[in-house]
């Protein structure tokens, strides 16, 4: 073996520690500052005197209790629906010989890329009880009076939320199944286990942690989502916790109550994360390490096409129908009338790109924020993931906790926290893109960190140790050994954050100003004034940008490689 890092001794001084401490300090400011301000506001009155009155109001006023209950129902049912739908699709795509598996993966990615608020608007076009296109079709076919669907209802909202939350479960389940060693199933089969026994005794238990984690993420997503409820719940005549919190910002803003209303969500999240640890804590299945054979795909035989039809039918809801509705509305003079060659118009497109004065600014801001958040976020997550998996500094646990903590904070609440933190010295950032950058960074950090931590966990520290024994500094071994191995994970994380920024509405809605408007806020504003056609045009533009950027990034030769990365960290 030859030592390739012959120039190593020149940098004997290891700068790693100071650099890492700097990162840690940044993380603490990033996360602790807004959360502390939230807590201060939750437990004080207007004059900042300590009080519990905010919580008394919260738990005695039915106008707060109802949304709390509604949110619990939405989060639970959405999580269950997501698991029921995502687990079989994940299994079919990962472990069977169903045709079109890559297409199904791409379509799930498409539904992940679709911002939930855009999906909600699209479903308004499709299933508003009277004007919705599906209901029009139903009435036309059956002559019925009553609508088939009413999207302005609790079930309608749960349906739309599930449509855009199930990809989270899918990714986790599919990844777990992709990485599962085939030998274990083979062993079961060799020992005489029938297909069902193998599934029950081996496959399902191995996939269960991923499914539980997925259910949890779906629950949290549904609980903290703002866009879909804001668009569908108000016309339906009810509030969820997030829309209720948003309504507390109406003039005069009741920030103390808003902060207090966030506390139950925060506690519930922490409780759930602990519960997950308790349930799965001692059941860690070490399936990575060494070379395993690829799992054998299950032969579906005659069921292959039925399985594909099932997947496509499910994907009708988050992808085909909504995209069709948006395209139709973009070219139609009347948003919910089926466009024909003779009625097709470019008016909406002309309006959005030449007359609407906020379009250019919002597009520019969104792309700038998307790219910079993704870049900074990936670096940050990479460092934290490295520190926690390799236990570089003493307080690595704290760092890991800090990186995960924002998951417990609904975006809208984080928005308030950031607003409270950065409208006063020493950091006056409100009114600039910086505050949005911080918000998007904080919101996307947990998933980015989880993703990269998982990626790190698959790389044995021995490789880095070997490099360091051979004289490289920590940073050198990171750059030369770890980075190339992480390439796919890094690209995936970058895309993940970029998409997260495009999807993000709840914090942006609190933090934007006229000069720092982003596309999601513009779309939300347009929805409030009922400009559905303009939303459709902007929404399609947004999707095109997202797909283009994700594709382009996957083509960038990075760390000496140009291989494509999918939205998974395998």
């Amino acid at each position, binding site marked *: 073996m030859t030592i390739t890092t012959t120039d190593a001794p020149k940098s004997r001084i290891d700068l790693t520690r100071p650099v890492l401490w700097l990162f840690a300090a940044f993380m603490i400011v990033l996360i602790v500052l807004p959360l502390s301000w939230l807590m201060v506001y939750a437990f004080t009155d207007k004059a900042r005197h300590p009080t519990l009155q905010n919580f008394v109001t919260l738990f005695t006023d039915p*106008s707060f209790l*109802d949304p709390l209950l509604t949110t619990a129902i939405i989060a639970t049912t959405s999580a269950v629906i997501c698991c029921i739908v995502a687990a079989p699709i994940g299994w079919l795509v990962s472990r069977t010989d169903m045709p079109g598996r890559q297409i199904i993966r791409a379509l799930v990615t498409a539904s992940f890329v679709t911002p939930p608020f855009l999906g909600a608007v699209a479903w308004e076009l499709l299933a*508003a*009880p*009277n*004007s919705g296109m599906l209901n029009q079709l139903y009435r036309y076919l059956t002559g019925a009076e009553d609508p088939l669907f009413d999207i*302005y209802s609790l079930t309608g909202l749960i349906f739309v939320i599930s449509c855009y939350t199930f990809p989270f479960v899918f990714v986790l389940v599919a990844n777990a199944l992709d990485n599962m060693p085939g030998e274990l199933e083979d062993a079961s089969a060799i020992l005489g286990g029938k297909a069902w026994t193998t599934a029950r005794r081996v496959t399902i238990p191995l996939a269960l942690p991923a499914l539980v984690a997925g259910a949890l993420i779906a629950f949290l997503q549904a609980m903290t989502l703002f866009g879909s409820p804001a668009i569908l*719940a*108000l*016309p339906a*005549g*009810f*509030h969820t916790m997030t829309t209720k919190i948003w*309504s507390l*910002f*109406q*003039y*005069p*803003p009741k920030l103390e109550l808003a902060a207090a209303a966030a506390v139950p969500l925060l506690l519930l999240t922490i409780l759930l994360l602990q519960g997950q640890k308790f349930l799965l804590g001692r059941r860690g299945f070490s399936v990575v390490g060494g070379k395993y054979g690829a799992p054998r795909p299950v032969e579906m035989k005659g069921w292959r096409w039925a399985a594909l039809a099932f997947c496509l039918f499910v994907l009708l809801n988050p992808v085909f129908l909504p995209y069709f509705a948006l395209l139709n509305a973009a070219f139609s003079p*009347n*948003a*919910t009338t089926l466009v024909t060659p003779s009625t097709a118009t470019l008016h909406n497109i002309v*309006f959005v790109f030449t*007359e*609407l*004065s*906020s379009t250019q*600014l919002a597009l520019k801001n969104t792309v700038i924020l998307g790219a910079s958040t993704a870049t900074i976020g990936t670096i940050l997550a990479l460092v934290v993931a490295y520190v926690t998996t390799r236990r570089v500094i003493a307080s690595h646990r704290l760092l890991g906790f800090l990186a995960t903590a924002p998951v417990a904070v609904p975006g809208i609440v984080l928005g308030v926290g950031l607003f409270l933190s950065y*409208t006063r010295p020493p950091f*006056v950032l*409100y*009114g600039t893109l910086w505050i949005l950058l911080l918000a998007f960074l904080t919101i996307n950090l947990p998933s980015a960190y989880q993703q990269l931590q998982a990626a790190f966990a698959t790389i044995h520290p021995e490789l880095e140790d070997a490099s360091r024994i051979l004289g490289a500094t920590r940073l050198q071994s990171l750059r030369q050994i770890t980075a190339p191995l992480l390439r796919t994970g890094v690209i995936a994380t970058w895309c993940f954050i970029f998409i997260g920024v495009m999807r993000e509405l709840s914090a942006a809605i609190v933090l934007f*100003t*006229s*000069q720092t408007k982003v596309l999601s806020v513009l779309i939300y*504003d*347009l929805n*409030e*004034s*009922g*400009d*559905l056609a*303009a939303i459709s045009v902007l929404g399609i533009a947004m999707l095109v940008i997202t797909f283009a950027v994700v594709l382009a990034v996957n083509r960038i030769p990075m760390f000496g490689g140009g291989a494509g990365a999918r939205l998974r960290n395998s």
Partner: protein
Amino acid sequence: MKGRKLSRRDILQGSAALAVGTVFASPVRAQAPEPVAITSALVEAAKKEGKLIFYSSMDLPVGEKLGKAFEAAFPGVSIQIERSGSERLFQRIDQEFASNIRAADIVNSSDASHFISWKKNGWLMPFVPEDVAKHFPDSYRDPDGMFATSRLWLSSIAYNTNLVKPEDAPKSFADLLDQKWAGKMVKGHPAYSGTIMTATFQLVRELGWEYMEKLAKQRVMQVQSSTDPPKKLSLGERAVMADGNEYGIVLLKEAGQPVEPVYPTEGTPTISGPTGIFKTAQHPNAAKLFQAWLHTRETQQFFSDFTAQYSVHAQVQSKPGRRKISDIKLMKEDAEGVEKMTEEIKTRYARLFRV
């Protein structure tokens, strides 16, 4: 007092004079500045700034059209329109000013009471365009020259002609409480829209909270902006609009959509939208130019023709074929009353309608 039939003269001189004039007059009456005409010096100064940020609650296609007309009139000055509900804009401006962000140059609100607060805060810049001094009734301009009413419009009832026969259509607000309209109506939200805030105030004053209580039991579809109900109506999403911009209905009807306005027998809530410049404007000359241009006879005529709203400019004629505002029974405006009741309206409304 219940709404009574008012002539145009009455509106211009009587009711609103009480409402706007007495309220906006500050105890110590400062002298309004000298009226300003559009001079080449002003145009040049505006072009040097090159940009204008206009906060407004006007329906977007209408507002952007106005903006494009301004840009066409003065090439070199671009306008960015920040559209949102007036109540939201009010909150945002408050939030931005509190954080020392002075993004807004000029503002048009659909809740005239907002100007009471802004004037009280000392945020407005006195500026009187020549046309305002010459052709605007006293009741529609601030005595200290801080703002002038750029537009007048109504929040009416309306119905979708495909879904409702004219003889079955509601004639009054009282008709909306009929069981047959349960689940078939759409309305805007007073915590978002200044138009709906103003209209709700007038309805509560004339018909009492009982009206709102009964309306809330009708399972009304709740949207935010007063610009949205006309659109939901024309899509056929709901058969009847309980409140919302009458001008939206008129424009949609003229564009061939199946909608028809109804001017309720109790009177139609009336909203005036003043425009004023912020003292802290980053583009003060562009803002002055816009304010002067917006209130000229030409712009007011173009605006009322194009947007189906009404102008208080003495020389503006209503477009042939359109209903004259003097033929409509109106409810009285009372900006000061709105300011006093804003909180109560928001709270009680949220309790009744549960959103």
